């Protein structure tokens, strides 16, 4: 059975956007779009869901906050196990709340530290970005000035090529499937 992968290349993000809209309206499945910079409204056009990065950040932040709080509480206040509360300059380390003002800065920093780093890690993880990973982009020009749309066509691709040309693709390549 023959399944073709078409790479439609556009020179301008606006044309690309238009073409995407057209294709989507014709219920044509767009495999992937590669672009040198974030194209506004593209995600909507492609019908992506909202990303949940922000939410993860919030959760990580909460973790960080509580970590900082607990760490300090354990060390300065609790007096259990290996902790070591001391009389430092007569500061009231009897209860957490009495000494709380002094702990705000570090608890805040912990929040940011955790939120920032863990979110970034998640981002790398979800995007499968890591040192030494190789690009999946079929055409190196997509980081320069070309916008590439990847479409899988079953059976005859004439119609699709035509359509793409109409919507303004500057060139259309085909993934050569000889070695499969």
């Amino acid at each position: 059975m023959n399944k073709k992968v078409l790479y439609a290349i556009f020179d301008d993000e606006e044309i690309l956007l238009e073409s995407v809209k057209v294709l989507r309206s014709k219920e044509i499945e767009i495999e992937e779009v590669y672009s040198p910079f974030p194209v506004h409204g593209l995600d909507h056009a492609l019908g992506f869901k909202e990303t949940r990065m922000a939410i993860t950040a919030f959760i990580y932040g909460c973790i960080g906050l509580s970590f900082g709080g607990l760490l300090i509480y354990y060390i300065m206040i609790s007096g259990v196990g290996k902790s070591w509360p001391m009389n430092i300059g007569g500061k009231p380390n009897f209860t957490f709340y009495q000494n709380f003002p002094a702990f705000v800065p570090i608890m805040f920093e912990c929040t940011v530290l955790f939120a920032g780093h863990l979110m970034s890690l998640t981002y790398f993880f979800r995007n499968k970005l890591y040192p030494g990973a190789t690009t999946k982009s079929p055409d190196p020009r997509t980081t320069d000035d070309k916008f590439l749309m990847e479409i899988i066509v079953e059976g005859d691709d004439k119609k699709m090529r035509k359509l793409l040309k109409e919507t303004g693709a500057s060139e259309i390549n085909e993934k050569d499937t000889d070695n499969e």
Partner: protein
Amino acid sequence: MHKESEIRDPLILGNKTYHDITRDIARPVEGKANKYWWILFSLSVFLFLWGVGCMAYTIGTGIGAWGLNKTVNWAWDITNFVWWIGIGHAGTLISAVLLLFRQKWRMAINRSAEAMTIFGVVQAGLFPLIHMGRPWLAYWVFPFPNEYGPLWQNFNSPLLWDVFAISTYLTVSTVFWYIGLIPDFAMIRDRMSKTISPMKKQLYTLLAFGWSGRAKHWQRFEEVSLVLAGLATPLVFSVHSIVSMDFATSVIPGWHTTIFPPYFVLGALFSGFAMVETLLIIMRKVVNMEAYITIKHIEYMNVIILFTGSLVGTAYITELFMAWYSGVAFEQYAFLNRATGPYWWAYAAMMSCNVIIPQLYWIKSIRTSFIATFILSIFVNIGMWFERFVIIVTSLHRDFLPSSWTMFSPTFIDIGIFLGTIGFFFTLFLMYARTFPVVAQAELKTILKSSGSEYKNKTHE
């Protein structure tokens, strides 16, 4: 695709296409360095090595190598520390705050501004380390289980707050910076040819983290940048507030002041922008970025400097007023001594450089001249250094008991270390300018059509 009003001046000059941008940004990385670069680089490396020597000597013999004494236990070390931290602030501000405010003009400069931030904070980080009597035990400031009982830290100490604040600030802004860098590294990676420069190709492949510019990735990219910006903004303010608390929470008259946090943050932005200008004006020459770093950018920053400068001035006056109004003899004397005591000249330098000179920016012609800006920015840098010196030394050298009043004068080691960090800073920055995409080209491309001159002209017709 949102449009921009015609009256706004273009932020990208010359008829640039996306590809032009790509080529221009990639040029410094691919091409050879020009002679300016080499001159500056060798100079700063020399300074750096000099500084390393002085630090080695200090650690070898003891802090006694500096000009400190029993009364003035901090002087240039912490002055430089605060100064560098302050400089660090502009970068994050530009990339974070201006991002939140959707200021397009930030895009051309945020990359370098952030680089400056990170390198600045690196310099700053050096000082708390080497100013210790026993730096080899510096790791004791981090809470980790140990066989001493275990021994923990004192979370009441502003210095410990510093440790957390600065390490957070450094790492988070580095990550922020890098996430933005990835697409641009990818761009360079894809321009490199395996055959001509395999090594470079390898390198940038590694750095690019396998970025391929998928739509979904871009979506996440934008969200992450936004959230990080959201995190970085309070972080910036917190960091310098905390640094200011090193002084504000103490009992020394002249330090024990509640207005320090806002006052320090403003001062930081003030000095930060000045340093950004200094660097950019050098950089746009050294790596030919004239088209992207325009006088418009400079002017915008000058306005900010004018604003913050005036606010800092207000803070100075407020201090004096509060001292008088408080009716506390020690407080009054501390500030009287600042202005009229043995260190009056430092105070004068601070006042003139930070309050008076920036007022020149009311004049358009000065505000929109590269040369003037460059000179003025240098002045501001000096002024802000003196501000920290004044706060630290003049408060300490005459505190409560006249019996222990002394003076401070730096040794050549003090000076050497300071120069060393400047050298180190520029070494890093110049290396960055030759190996990194100095402008966030991916972002820049998004505003090409709205703010590129050519497109603007089109719309005029």
